[in-house]
């Protein structure tokens, strides 16, 4: 399939292009964050080989992540950072086909480069991350535990777009 037909499919599926070019980070920047390698923060695009040399890593996400690492005091496992619209589409399509998802998430904040998923092995771990982010000066949007039991999803979307019960 040609790249133009892919673009058309993604456009039709509602995966709009992201226009925050100033925060696109190249893979040559080997240290976008002191604790996480570029290959960790862009792991999904690398896995799907979709422009693996570029990732949208917004400064709000990077500083929030650093705050969590400092507060936790141990190494943490980032399970997802940036996802390009194409990769998000591919992940959603595969999960819908497998019967795991009902609908795709074209508006996922991972596509905007301001979201991160951190592995939380249990609710104690999830709560620990929650307390840390709660003390952060910055507003943050947290998916509740009962909606994401195996990971801690936090993002720094515009506040008005954060569902009321996700606001910390």
């Amino acid at each position, binding site marked *: 399939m040609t790249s133009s037909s892919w673009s058309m499919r993604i456009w039709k599926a509602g995966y709009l292009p992201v226009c925050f070019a100033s925060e696109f980070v190249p893979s040559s920047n080997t240290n976008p964050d002191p604790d996480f390698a570029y290959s960790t923060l862009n792991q999904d695009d690398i896995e799907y080989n979709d422009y693996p040399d570029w990732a949208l890593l917004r400064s709000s996400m990077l500083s929030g992540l650093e705050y969590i690492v400092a507060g936790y005091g141990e190494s943490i496992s980032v399970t997802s950072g940036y996802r390009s619209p194409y990769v998000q589409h591919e992940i959603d399509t595969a999960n819908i086909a497998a019967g795991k998802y*009902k609908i795709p998430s074209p508006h996922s904040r991972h596509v905007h480069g301001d979201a991160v998923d951190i592995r939380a092995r249990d609710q104690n771990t999830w709560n620990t991350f929650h307390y840390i982010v709660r003390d952060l000066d910055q507003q943050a949007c947290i998916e509740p535990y*009962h*909606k994401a039991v*195996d990971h801690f999803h936090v993002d720094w979307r515009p506040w008005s777009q954060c*569902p009321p019960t996700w606001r910390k």
Partner: protein
Amino acid sequence: MRIMLAVLVIACSTNVLSQQALDPQSNRAELLSDLRSGDAQVRMDAFDKLRNDPSALRDPAVKASLINLLDRENKEPIFGEEEDYAAYTSWLSDTVAKLIDWSDPHEVCVVANSSDLPDALADHAKTAVHCLLQRLKGASATTRGITVAMLVQAVDKGKSSLDADTIQLVHQTVLIALQDSNQNVKVPTIEALKQYGGQDAIPALRVVAEKDPDPSEHYAIRKSASEAIATIQKRASQNHTKSADQQ
């Protein structure tokens, strides 16, 4: 070039005009029908349009449809990566909570089953507590944990509106939750007691603080129970001082 531009302008204006020409009533009827669709994406899109239309939200037919919609979504399984769907259900429960009649047990129970609105439920404890107790039956550990936490908050806020038997039943439920082997039940219960619990919870919390066998996060459950005891004692002494000052 000029011809192309002219065609583009005409096409856009025709589109805008045809949208304006749509009868708002038939448009709303279509959206209400979409809310009953088997396709979650269609339901979500219809809800998004209605949620941003204040006149639609005043329509009793829209209100009834949104309550039914939340009731339906409450029964759908949810997977953690479904970010847009998870956000949609949160917006939906928030919207429905602003529309319902809080004296209607069915409507309150629909909101209580959504897990998203502990504050609103606590404000209407008299009806909500019964819904929450009902919800515990046959629920998963995660749901039990959230529900017991909401019960603790609701009883704290609505004590005066609840009868002694109901309060006693909630108290028993909380004690059982503290002894649950699953941390998804215990952790939210302890957290809720820390924020809203009374001194009657201290003996049970003390047992957890001293003997809980779960070692995860450096025995976080024990630590959390100790903190809950200290917070409850501090709150009780502040309340005591406050009431002494008032006398």
